[in-house]
Structure formats: C-alpha cells, structure tokens
C-alpha cells in the first residue's frame, strides 16, 4: 500500500499569480508547446512541454522521463528542490497535470496549478511577454516516489483489493469497448468511468467548485480513504484524473503510466465491457 502523502498541490487564480509574478522562490512553468510559448507567455515563465517529460519505451508512447534527465531538466529551468512550481496551460490543465504527476513522482512537494486557460490571463491584459527569463542553473536532486505510480504488475496484485479503486478517464466509447485503440477494448474490471473533462466548467474553462468535484468522485465510490488508480490510453489524461484527486487532497493516488496501451494488449490482463 502507498504511503499517505501529507502535502497537497494547490489551485491558484489570476489574482494570486499577478501578485506573485516576481517571487524569488517561485518558478512559473508554461506547459504548452514551445511554439506557443515562443509567441508569448506569462512574464518570468519558463517552458516545459509534454515531450520534455515523457519518453518512448518498450513500444509505449509516453512513459515517465528518466530520473537523471528529469534532474537535468529541472536544474536547467532554475528549479530547485524547494522551489514552488506554478504550472499553467490552455488545455483544461491537461499538460500541467502531467508535469504535476511527474514532479510528485520525483518527490517534489511544492506545486501549484493555474485555474483555467492562460488565454483568460492574456485576454485580461495581464503581463504576457515573449522574453525568455534568464535563470540560474540549480542542482536538483530527485527521489523516486513509487507510491504515485501503478504498473501492470501492481494492478494484477491489487485487482481484488477492496481498498483500491480504478478510475477510467477516457471517452465513454473507449471505456465500453466500442472504440478500441489496440487489440482489445473495454476497461479494467470494476473501474468507474469519469471523463477527464467532467471536472472542468464548460462556461469558464476553470475547475468546477471543490464541493462539486468531491461529490462527483465520492458518489462514484472514489473516497479519500481508498487508494485510487487513474488510467487512460497512454497516461496523459490519467494524469489529469490524478491531479484532480490530488487537488482535492486525496492522499493515495496513482497513475497507471502505461495505461490501456499496455493493459489492452497484454495477455493475462482481464477486461470488462
């Protein structure tokens, strides 16, 4: 069983960000593509895009970056072990979520996520520049946190465990098996389905209110006392599910990094439709 995580990431809004743009202990990270970053970003923000923090491995498309590469990446972006990392994107938090999961996987504890699309920040006339900030390199040291990672083997060992719940955040068709990426469609036996965008308010592109989110997960049996494994097809959307639960303070959450791209094709892995 996972060790309970006592810290939790925080949600910040435009007002907070505006007041803390120049904080020395803070590193703002734009998790959109380098192309978009190059056209303008929040003042003092560095860029870490999705493909900076994933690697292809064993035929799987987007696995977690290796520890030494992660350390070099953090160091080059001026992030040290005590830096507060503020992540933003323009995609419902999808890319920020992957960075958040990766940071927690390597033991980073001070993480904040911008609530909403950064487009709203820009459109409101807040500082949005093309100047890349000069940062001093650090000596970042990562520590593997296996407690936020689920593997196929771990899931096979815990399929009957009543303290573990599985959260499928893919589209309904992928969950039901109507749409199959890979050899088989369907879901991990017993998994509940909550699409990753269910946590976003369609009118504002911001997170839904905390109470509403908590209620959505709890009525599906995903309560904080359980250990919850989020999965999708390749681990990206799963990281969003992971992030939402962590923002709510859930202490024991894992992302199945290989997700359905492995489970759907693997012999000996049961599938439910």
């Amino acid at each position: 069983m996972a060790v309970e995580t006592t810290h939790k990431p925080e949600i910040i809004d435009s007002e907070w960000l505006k007041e803390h743009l120049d904080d020395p202990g803070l590193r703002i990270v734009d998790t959109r593509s380098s192309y978009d970053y190059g056209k303008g970003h929040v003042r003092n923000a560095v860029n870490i895009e999705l493909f900076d923090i994933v690697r292809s491995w064993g035929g799987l498309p987007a696995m977690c970056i290796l520890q030494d590469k992660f350390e070099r990446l953090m160091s080059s972006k001026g992030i040290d072990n005590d830096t507060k990392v503020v992540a933003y994107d323009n995609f419902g938090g999808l890319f920020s979520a992957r960075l958040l999961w990766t940071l927690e996987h390597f033991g980073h504890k001070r993480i904040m996520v911008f609530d909403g699309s950064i487009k709203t920040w820009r459109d409101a006339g807040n500082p949005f520049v093309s100047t890349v900030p000069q940062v001093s390199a650090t000596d970042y040291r990562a520590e593997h946190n296996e407690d936020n990672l689920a593997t196929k083997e771990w899931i096979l060992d815990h399929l009957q465990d009543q303290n573990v719940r599985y959260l499928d955040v893919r589209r309904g068709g992928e969950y039901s098996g109507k749409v199959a990426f890979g050899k088989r469609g369907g879901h991990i036996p017993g998994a509940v389905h909550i699409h990753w965008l269910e946590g976003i308010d369609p009118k504002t592109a911001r997170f839904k209110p905390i109470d509403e989110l908590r209620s959505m997960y709890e009525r599906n049996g995903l309560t904080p006392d359980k250990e919850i494994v989020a999965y999708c097809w390749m681990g990206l959307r799963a990281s969003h599910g992971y992030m939402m639960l962590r923002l709510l303070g859930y202490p024991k959450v894992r992302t199945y990094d290989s997700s359905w791209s492995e489970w759907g094709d693997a012999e000996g892995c049961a599938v439910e439709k």
Partner: protein
Amino acid sequence: MRINEDMDLEKVIDLFPETLKVLYGIGYTDLETPVMRHAAKIISVKQAAMLMGADPGRLVEDLNQAIMGD
C-alpha cells in the same frame, strides 16, 4: 459533409485544415505543433469549445462556415 460537435477535433483538422483559423480565433494558436495535435486526438469539437470557454454551437457554426468558404 457537415461538422458536428461530436467529431474528433483531430479529424476535423485533418479533413478541413481551413478550420484552423477558426480554432485559432478561440485560442488554439498552436494546433499545427506535435504537442497540440497529440492533444487534439482526445477531444471532440464540443470539448474543444468548452476548454476555451466558447459556445459549442457557435463553434460548430463557425467551423462549418469556414469549410463552406465564407
């Protein structure tokens, strides 16, 4: 063929690249890059609208206008 809100965003872009200018207008400024094309695989037109706080019906209309040559 008409675009509807349940179509995959990636499919819309592949079939009708002229829709990129509409998507650009609601905030998708980098859909030609690998990261965003990857992300476009996993959302529908409706979801693309909601991620930017745009009205899905209006977006569908604008996309269809774009492919009609207006």
